[in-house]
């Protein structure tokens, strides 16, 4: 079975960076999500508007909400890994 050894979790020097980035991305996505809900509540018929290739706004927006979650998640993971590597290298140099 695919098992990894458990590691002791001490102080994470990148925690502050990751937390700030996470909050920023959360706010961006939340705004996108809230806008979707508000359009549906205020002007539901706007969602029938054809946007591209015969697809209406509801379908395009809904799919975009799903895809953008993955895109932001990939971005977040890449940024976190880069920061973790950078701080680890700095720590090794200091030692």
């Amino acid at each position: 079975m695919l098992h990894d050894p458990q590691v002791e979790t001490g102080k994470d020097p990148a925690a502050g960076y990751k937390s700030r980035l996470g909050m920023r991305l959360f706010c961006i996505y939340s705004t996108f999500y809230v806008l979707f809900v508000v359009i549906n509540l205020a002007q539901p018929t706007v969602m029938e508007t054809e946007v591209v290739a015969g697809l209406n706004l509801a379908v395009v927006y809904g799919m975009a909400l799903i895809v953008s979650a993955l895109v932001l998640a990939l971005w977040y993971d890449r940024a976190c890994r880069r920061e973790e590597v950078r701080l680890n290298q700095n720590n090794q140099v200091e030692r």
Partner: protein
Amino acid sequence: MVLGIFISFVLFIVGLSFYLGRQTKTSSGYYAAGGQIHWFVNGIAFAGDYLSAASFLGICGMIATTGYDGFLYSIGFLAGWVVALFVIAEPLRRMGRFTFADAVDAPFQSRGIQLMAAISTLVVSLCYLIPQMVGAGVLVEPLLGLEHRWGVLMVGSIVIIIVATAGMASTTYVQFLKGGLLIIFSFILVWSVCARGLSTNPPGGDGGTFYQHRTIPCGNSLPLVPSQNGLRVLEETTSKAGRFALVEEVSDQTAKRTWWRVDAGDAGTRLVEGECLVHTAGGNNLINGLPESGTNKLRQVGSIAKLKGETEASTGPLSPVGILAALGHKDTTVRTWKEAKFEAANGDKVTVYHPVETPGARLLRPGLKFKLEGTILERLDFASLMLALFLGTAALPHILIRYYTVPSPASARKSTLVAIGSIGLFYVLTLFMGLGAMTNGVLNPADSNMAAPLLAKSFGLLLFSLISAIAFATVLGTVSGLIVAASGAVAHDLADRFLNLQLPEKSKITLGKAAALVIGAIGIALGILFKGMNVSFLVGLAFAVAASANLPAIVMILFWKRTTAAGVIASIALGMVSALGLILLSPDLYKLYGLDPLKAPVALSNPGIISIPLGFLTLVVVSLLTERGVRHEHNG
């Protein structure tokens, strides 16, 4: 073949559990798989845990009956993972050990928090268990020919075996297998739907013949139609659900009486044939005028009335975009099905499922189920659901405990990333599975939950068997996770930490197994009680309870230094009680009690918009009132 594949699958899962069970010797192994699961396995297991009966059966069924409104659940369920990844995943992994209670209690070491968090875990897990058990019963009925309650009992028993043998380790691998298979076979099903394309004359379900229900023009008063084509109107009734006529049809020296809807529209008055279920005053069930039997069942329904303006048309194979564009075309209309219940003059209790021609463009935007153009309260209900779905995921105890099965916080983040990718892909597929079921003549008008497996059946028994076995594993995987979470709440949070029983390792595991047995039994009873309710709707309620009870505590502990133990206790208690109270007094539960939903004291069906802010507000107010200069350290 169906039975063979199904039994093989179940035996494999139980065998795997026994194998892994032999390796579980410590409580860490039982509750968190020793914290050694690889992040990729954990990510797919997240998908297996999260993609429950609600996602596969409920969402597909809701899309098949109400169009885009069902897809809103897909969007909301996936969006919740953004909160989990960006806000919760790593800090929670760093704070906790086995359970949700460990995490929220880490900065305080408060027995009150231990107790309240354990109760909340139990309540949320039980709320989430109900729809899974309902889904299990729904699946087993057509698959094995067993009654709903036997299906629930069977799932409950198998899951208790899985959890009681190996705990989190076996649960993880069951979820990993199930998550992977579910996504692969859903993809195959959607590919098959696209390859078949759309047609006004779909293949239908059993036997590959589709019954076209009739529509007959008629006059406005009785006799509605002259005795023509062997049809004669005997009686007319008007109820809250509309006008209905009892039509006698004579053919081959047999006469059968069925109820038809009287549709008075711009094009004149018409008699519309539907599917008719009558419970006679004498206690018999008649389906479409004849006694209910193994061969006389409600027909499968759901078809396109006009495809781009044509009443006889087929597209041939289409791309996924082509399917959506053709269905959303301004001249496409689809026969969706509505239920009407009334009492006939002779005391018969009548249920008529009748078709309504709905424009495709209307189906592909929200508003058929949620009344977005209705009253302010109806709009609030929609906003409330979307809020609970968004915030609920990151507060589900059975999802949170999965963060403790990986070796490090970075693994928690990476496994969440894998989960978002796999779950997102699955939710995109739900739209096509639901619309496929809506237009391929495979829907059971009395129960939307079987839409996806019945769609698979229209492509052959092999795909049906595999999809049904996976759907059953879907229920098993999620129920296992829920029972592990709940047994952890009893044995670890309550017995070990709150009561400080100081049990040896072996006794802790035994207690966890005993708790799994009791919780499984309660889940079985509730699953039988809630038969017939849409599983997605029920899960939406569980999300609201989780978001109201748990999320304020998690978020505020992480981001507000003035949070106190009393604030956490009060917010969990009030969030949980208010969400549960609002649900119990809601119109949908009134319907379940057999009462008039209009008389429900709470007009909202989804409580999140009240109970979630209430949870946050309570935490802030109580924390400010009980703060004594001692502030907890932020974990990060």
